């Protein structure tokens, strides 16, 4: 009888340990998986931040995490001890535990201590919040207007007159970049995990996002607020250049493009672009008649590595597929004025347009 009771107890202890064991095993499994991936190699990893502002957020998160871990372990340990020590035993009989009304002093202590912990955590939290919300001024700040559209990003650089691009945001390293973000239609959210936290872009409002890249490189991001049919296909990239390279890029991209010397296919494509439906939505600075504002600005389109919400690599093949039937490549609702419609282009027209679009690039030096 006694032996069986003890066996039952052992079994119960094992069952109680099961979740813990699972947790440990899973944690180890994740660890081994991570060693095969180079630290920080994942393109959208908020836990391996690169810039000052992302690091600030990450450090705050780590601090709060450790506080939470200590509290969690302490509270769970108390629960386990209480369960094991004060459980019902076979020889208890009808005996009731000591009946008490409570313990005011204990209650006061466990109210005051969490309040103090919260107040302590609030100090760095509020500091980081105010830091991130503080709009920096001065000559050393690059300002970019970000406008979310269904389903692509528009960037305007007011400090470089005329400079407008889409989906791929170019910034200099070692400089605070202030994004003033808004939306043209529904709520979007601008998120580049390695550089900054998420920030909703709300129509009629201007939200502040600060970026700071320590190293040149390409940082991936995406829209993080459900914005309709092609939300999943609304990505973005941030390319950080050395400051001198950035200046060169920005001054070059701010210029209008020269397209009067085109010939052959490219010239036919240019005429098709202007005479066709393209100019209703797209503008090309330097091409007369092309000043649509619904879709992305296409000046220097072929300098961009990705297009259509940065989901397609800018190759001739994907560009041909895109022109042949855009809504087939990426779900859109052109009938409701959202996204590019199928223009029923012939193969010859597509050939000419691709040849023309390939001329939209920085001239070779």
């Amino acid at each position, binding site marked *: 009888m006694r032996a069986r009771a003890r066996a039952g107890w052992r079994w119960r202890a094992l069952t109680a340990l099961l979740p813990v064991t699972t947790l440990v095993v899973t944690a180890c499994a994740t660890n081994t998986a991570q060693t095969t991936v180079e630290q920080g190699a994942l393109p959208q990893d908020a836990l391996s931040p690169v810039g000052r502002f992302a690091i600030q957020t990450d450090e705050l998160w780590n601090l709060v995490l450790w506080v939470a871990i200590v509290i969690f372990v302490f509270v769970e340990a108390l629960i386990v001890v209480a369960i094991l020590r004060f459980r019902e035993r076979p020889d208890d009989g009808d005996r009731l535990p000591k009946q008490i009304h409570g313990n005011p002093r204990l209650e006061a202590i466990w109210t005051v201590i969490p309040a103090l912990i919260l107040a302590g955590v609030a100090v760095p939290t509020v500091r980081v919040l105010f830091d991130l919300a503080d709009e920096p001024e001065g000559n050393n700040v690059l300002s970019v207007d970000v406008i979310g559209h269904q389903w692509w990003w528009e960037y305007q650089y007011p400090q470089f007159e005329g400079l407008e691009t889409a989906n791929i945001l170019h910034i200099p390293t070692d400089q605070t970049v202030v994004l003033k973000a808004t939306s043209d*239609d529904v*709520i979007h959210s601008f998120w580049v995990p390695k550089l900054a936290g998420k920030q909703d872009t709300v129509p009629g409002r201007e939200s502040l996002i600060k970026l700071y890249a320590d190293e040149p490189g390409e940082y991936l991001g995406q829209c993080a607020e459900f*914005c*309709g049919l092609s939300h*999943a296909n609304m990505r973005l990239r941030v390319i950080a250049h050395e400051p001198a390279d950035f200046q060169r890029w920005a001054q070059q991209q701010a210029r209008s493009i020269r397209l009067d010397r085109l010939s052959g296919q490219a010239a036919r494509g240019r005429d098709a672009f202007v005479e066709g439906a393209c100019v209703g939505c797209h503008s090309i600075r330097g091409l007369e008649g092309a000043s649509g504002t619904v879709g992305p600005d296409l000046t220097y389109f072929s300098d961009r590595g990705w297009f259509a919400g940065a989901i397609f690599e800018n190759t001739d093949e994907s560009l041909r597929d895109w022109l042949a039937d855009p809504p087939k490549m990426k*779900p859109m609702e052109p009938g409701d004025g*959202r996204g590019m419609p199928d223009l029923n282009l012939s193969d010859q027209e597509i050939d000419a347009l691709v040849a023309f679009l390939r001329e939209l690039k920085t001239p070779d030096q």
Partner: protein
Amino acid sequence: MATAAMEQRATTFRRPTAKTGLVGWLTTVDHKKIGILYGVTAFAFFIVGGIEALLIRLQLATPNGQVLSADVYNQIFTMHGVTMIFLVIMPLTAAFMNYVMPIQIGARDMAFPRMNAFSYWVFLFGGIFLYSSFLFGQAPLGGWFGYAPNSTFTYNPGVGMDFYAIGL
């Protein structure tokens, strides 16, 4: 003669008893039975919401999943969220509150038993109404949160958001 009158009265003014069987469940105002109705209905919706979750995962199991179209995928994850929050978690709390609370505080029933029963039936038909949108192929697709302006007529011209608003 006196006995006959007593018997007559006994059948006319019989002490009311609860109905049993299907009619009993349909007409009940008893807090425990209503609690059970809430629980069973919430569980049924839980199964449906779980199937929707499986469809979402099936779509995402491979890159560029083609199990569902983009449009239907948005409907499925919206309905999954709406179902789990409004048709499972909330009624499940109602189930426990109905069943347990009156017993805990020593009350005979909820304060307004008929209104309590009415609430359950409104919940059930609201849920069925919401799901009838699938018959039109236009379930809500604005996310369970239904943020404007994405949930407005301009950006969601179908009837999905109407089902969402009226159903909830």
